[in-house]
């Protein structure tokens, strides 16, 4: 069902963004604690990186049909 595809994409997107954000945040915290004397900037940096990556992935996923370099279309029946 083609109408369910979008919903699936959003699911993935959200999950991915949650993971990435969390990971980024965590890593940021870790790095901030370990290497950067508890500055806040690595945290925001890490979360930003995570968010950015999530955003890019999400966008890429949503766009994936329209990009030509893909060898096969993602079709879900």
């Amino acid at each position: 069902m083609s109408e369910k595809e979008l919903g699936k994409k959003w699911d993935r997107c959200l999950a991915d963004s949650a993971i990435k954000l969390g990971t980024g945040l965590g890593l940021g915290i870790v790095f901030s604690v370990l290497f950067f004397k508890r500055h806040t900037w690595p945290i925001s940096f890490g979360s930003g990186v995570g968010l950015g990556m999530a955003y890019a992935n999400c966008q890429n996923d949503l766009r994936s049909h329209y990009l030509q370099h893909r060898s096969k279309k993602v079709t879900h029946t």
Partner: protein
Amino acid sequence: SLAATLTALSADVSEDTLCLSLCDSRHRRTKTDRCLFLSGGGAAKVVAAGLVTVGGGIGGTILYAKWDNKFRAAVENNVPYSDWLLGLALGPPSPKSGLPIKKQYKDCHEHQDTSVTAAVHPDTESPTATEPLKERPVEEVAAILAQQDQEEQDIATSVSASLEESLTSSAKATLQAIGAQEAALQAITRHTLKLKEAMEAEEKSAQWKDLEAALADRTGAVNDAETALSKANEALDSLKSVIDKSKGLKVSAVRPLVLAAEENLHNMVVDLDKVVTKVHSAESEAKIVSQYSELVNEAKQQFQREVSSLTPEIQANWKGLTGKLSSDDLNALIAHAHRRIDQLNRELAEQRVREQIHIDAALEQQKLEDQKALEKAVSTALQHIKEEARLEQERKLSELREVMEAEMRTQLRRQAAAHTDHVRDVLKVQEQELRVDAEQVLSSKMLEQETRYRQLSQEQLDNFTLDMNTAYARLKGMEEAIDSHVVAEEEARKAHQLWLSVEALNYTLKTANADIPTVPLEGAAQAVRDSCHDSDFALALSSALPEESLHRGVYSEASLRARFNSLRSLARRVALIDESHNSLYQYFLSYLQAALLFEEKQEAPPAQLCSEDLDPFKLLSYASYCLEHGDLELAAKLVNQLRGEARRVVEDWLTEARLTLETRQVVSLLSAYANAVGLGTTQAP
């Protein structure tokens, strides 16, 4: 200033430059005219000199061209328009060379004369020569021949008439002449006889009267004879001229006439000559006799004179005076007689002596006369013989001609015979040909008749077979009708079966529930296929059912409708997303638009979509309307107009809708077909 100019001229300076310089200086002065003239004087001189040279050249050329034609020709060839100029000045060019032309002309003229004369002869000859070449028609030839014969006949008749005329006239004249000559001859002989008689017999006045009468007669006769002779000669001459003229005509038919006339002429001439010679001989004889009689008369007269001189008393006619004479007279008379006898004897002796001489002289004379006569006779004889020879020749010629003509006639007869033979042969051949043609015609006619007979019999046969065929056909028709009834019933049964299967197929379509497709249509389709073996249309239709519907079944319209409603909101949300706008931000905007934009839930679609109607919201409302009103097809069409992500979202729904529509269409067609077939078979008779 003028003087200064002139001195400048004499000072041997180029006047032009000086003048010009002067003119320049005096340019503003009023003496420009003279200056110009003077300045132009040099130019004028040059111009004049040039003109003179050119004119002289042209004039010289013209004069020389007049004298020498070759030069003129060369000039005309090389200089354009010079021929016009020279023609204007000198007239057209004379012929190329003068003297040779004259000779040529003379020769040409002579040649022309001879050729003309020669041409005249061939012209006259050639028509006559060409005439025999072309074959004149027979009638023309016959006509010409007849005409020629006629002409000849006419000429012959005319000539013969003239000849006869002249002949008769000349014959008359000749006869007259001959008669006159004979009369003259007779008169002469009579006269001579009378003279002789008168000499021998006694003198009688009656005899002398007779003699005179005879003499007159003779002279008259001789005159008559002469006139008659002249007349005859005239007539003969005219005849001769006529003969010559007719000879000059050169007509063959006239020749025998001419020949005969000539012979007649010759005979007449001969006779005339003979008679004339006779008359001449008679005349000569008469002359002798007259001479003798004259001598005798003279002697008598002398004697008489002597006697009278002796006896003057005695008169004439001394015979009757025997009684009257005296003896003296008698003695004187006897003495005289003796003397006379002596004289006579002496004369006789003298005569005898001179006899020979006299005889010789007489002979000479006679010889001369004989010679003359001989010559004359010879000449006349020669003439006569010549004439006879010529006549003989002519006769022989005419004979020869006759012989030739006879021969020619035989040859012609032979030719005619050959011609008749040839004609006979040709006729035979023609007869053969005509017979063959007639036989051919006959055979063709016979053939025609036979064919017609055959044709008629064939026609009869054909008619019979035709009748038989029609009867047979009708029988066959009846059988076929019966068979077709059976067939029709079979067909009806089949149609019924088809209808039933199609109905079953139709029923399976209804087995769809909400969200559950129908049962696979395979079985029903197979049943339909089984029941329509012979119908290609139905087979094609049944095979046109889409695979999905056969194996999986199709969704009902209601399920599709429900699905669409859920789809609609999704499509609304992604209305702005397409190939170029598909970032997250666009997604956010699209969701915002969907939240904020309100459209009609259902809107009736127009008959024609314009560009504004292609807005996804509008399309979706149109599609909803259609779906609510049961028009799945139109709804599918409208949904098909979506583009971009919205289209991707509704793709599956669209496919399902298509499947359903296809299946429904096929099934409806099949049912329509089955109905039609059923209706067809169950038609009332």
